[in-house]
């Protein structure tokens, strides 16, 4: 018999605190779809995706209904296209993106990830073609997401790739100038990219993964915030150690939900269950914000002094709770701070509490990086590359994942607003230090060597 408390608290989480499963992402290996003929390759890709994912959306909806927990997004992640289509030209790769887009549309998923290259130590021919094709691939499709891993703790930072990505981002923005550079919202540049991320835009299926796998992304910033608010209301004398316990317990509950739903979906589709990514992923809805958690913890806004310490506490407590809840944890696992996708964070930026520099600082203690950050459209490719390089360095040195999703909004300057719509939200454009200036450091290129693993200060 369940207790009344158990039932009522669960209902509260669902009804008032936005508890949901943020994404069920089906990973599909396309390695054996390879062909020397582009038409054959595209046919193989389309068939494999549509057959494997045929029942994904329906199954997620049915299981969501059964448990009363909505599966908000259903998505697909595929093997890195730079590998399966390594033999082709950039224009042929754009056609592969179209095939991915069509397959995603036909099975009813809103995003498909895996237009990906892994170039942390150097670029193969296929990698270069893929990267060059990214602007057109993202502008001509609406569901395809791209990611490029340019750095890792074991390899160092491929600065040639970093510089190239600065140029690619500029090109993608200018090709989607009529929509505030929205193509860049579907492009992530990574250090230490995990092979099993379920969240977009960074999801792809790693080479070490099976034919098909179900990965789940849980969320729940609203649940965490409400739990902190409730606890402080009941006892205003709680200290940070006790608040950490509350976040941990809440993360445990959220993760258990994700694992339950993920396993049910996997079993129902007869596909292996992969990991739960226990991230706090916000949406632009009020009450579903990571930024609001900082205010519950007593900070005026995200970005003011104290933010890094608070985020370190939140991120660590989320990981501890999640790791206890499930032995299959992976992906990014931590707190996301996507500026435009979190109403509270974008408002903090607009009010001047959050700068690009502070944002970079706090990415050293959270799970991702400079995510959905709108910057002036005239920021140079070199400066964009330099921002990427700084973010990659944080990941490489700290043995963690970092990423950038920067949007140089064409024709707009710092202080203007950028509108992306839907889950991508809107944001004030943040000023960039030395946005137009020369940056010889970036042009030097080459590889920043992998860091020493001892003398850890």
């Amino acid at each position, binding site marked *: *018999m*369940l*207790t*009344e408390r*158990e*039932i*009522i*608290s*669960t*209902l509260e*989480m*669902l009804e008032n605190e936005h508890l949901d499963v943020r994404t069920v992402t089906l990973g599909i290996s396309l390695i054996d779809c390879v062909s020397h003929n582009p038409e054959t390759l595209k046919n193989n890709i389309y068939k494999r995706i549509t057959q494997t994912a045929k029942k994904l959306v329906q199954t997620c909806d049915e299981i969501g209904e*059964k*448990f*009363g*927990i909505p599966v908000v997004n259903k998505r697909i992640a595929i093997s890195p296209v730079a590998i399966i289509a390594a033999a082709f030209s950039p224009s042929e790769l754009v056609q592969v993106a179209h095939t991915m887009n069509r397959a995603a549309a036909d099975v009813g998923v809103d995003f498909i990830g895996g237009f990906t290259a892994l170039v942390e130590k150097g670029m193969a021919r296929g990698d270069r073609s893929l990267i060059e094709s990214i602007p057109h691939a993202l502008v001509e499709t609406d569901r395809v997401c791209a990611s490029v891993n340019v750095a890792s703790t074991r390899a160092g930072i491929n600065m040639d790739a970093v510089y190239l990505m600065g140029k690619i981002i500029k090109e993608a923005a200018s090709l989607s100038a009529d929509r505030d550079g929205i193509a860049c919202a579907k492009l992530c540049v990574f250090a230490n990219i995990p092979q099993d991320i379920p969240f977009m835009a960074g999801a792809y299926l790693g080479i070490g993964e099976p034919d098909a796998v179900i990965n789940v992304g849980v969320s729940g910033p609203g649940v965490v915030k409400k739990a902190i608010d409730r606890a402080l209301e009941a006892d205003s004398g709680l200290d940070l150690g006790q608040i950490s316990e509350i976040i941990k317990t809440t993360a445990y*509950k959220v993760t*258990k*939900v994700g*694992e*339950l739903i993920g396993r049910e979906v996997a079993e129902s589709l007869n596909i292996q269950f992969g990991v739960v990514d226990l991230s706090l992923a916000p949406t632009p809805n009020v009450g579903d914000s990571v930024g609001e958690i900082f205010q519950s913890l007593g900070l005026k806004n995200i970005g003011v002094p104290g933010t890094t310490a608070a985020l370190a506490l939140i991120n660590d407590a989320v990981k501890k709770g999640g790791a206890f809840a499930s032995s299959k944890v992976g992906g990014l696992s931590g707190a996301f701070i996507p500026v435009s996708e979190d109403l509270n964070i974008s408002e903090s930026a607009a009010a001047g509490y959050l700068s690009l520099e502070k944002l970079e600082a706090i990415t050293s203690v959270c799970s991702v990086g400079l995510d959905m950050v709108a910057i002036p459209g005239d920021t140079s490719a070199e400066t964009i590359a330099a921002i990427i390089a700084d973010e990659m360095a944080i990941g490489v040195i700290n043995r963690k994942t970092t990423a950038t999703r920067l949007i140089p909004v064409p024709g707009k300057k710092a202080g203007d607003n950028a509108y992306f719509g839907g889950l991508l939200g809107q944001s004030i454009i943040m000023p960039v230090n030395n946005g137009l200036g020369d940056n010889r450091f970036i042009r030097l290129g080459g590889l920043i060597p992998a860091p020493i693993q001892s003398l850890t200060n």
Partner: protein
Amino acid sequence: MKKVIISVLGHDRPGILAATTQVLFEQDCNLENVSQTILQSEFAGVFISSIPESLTVEELNNQLEKALGALNLYVFVRPIRVDVATYDAPGSEPFVITTKGPDRKGLVAGITSVIARFGANVTNLSAVFKGGDDPNQNIMIYEVDIPWRIDQNAFQKDLREKATELGLNISIQHRKIFEAINRI
């Protein structure tokens, strides 16, 4: 071996369980299962006990009435017949149905009529008045075994329609979700 079921009802006060079980002990009965609750100020207990062949149900009833009557409690003893077929539970899955809405007559009757019509079995029912007297905070929790063989969609549809008719918000969720969230 004979078995009886005993129910004890009355105003709650200290000593009810002690008085009941003392009689059973003195009569050489063995208590097999107990469930008791207090609703508002009223005690209700149900006891299953095996009793010696030599002891009649009437005699046990008399002894219990003597002991519990002094505490102003009502007692009822009945033999459990093992030869009567019990409800044969079909294969099913456990769900939790919760309704929330202003209190009025006929809420439980309305909801349980749909549950019964589909052959689903309520295994536990409890009411929670969260906000004291606030009729909008009236929550009913039904734990229900829903047979696999029934039309799940029709069942959910009928329940939701009935809830709407009664002015209730309803949610129907598999029990596992509550266990996953609340239990280690």
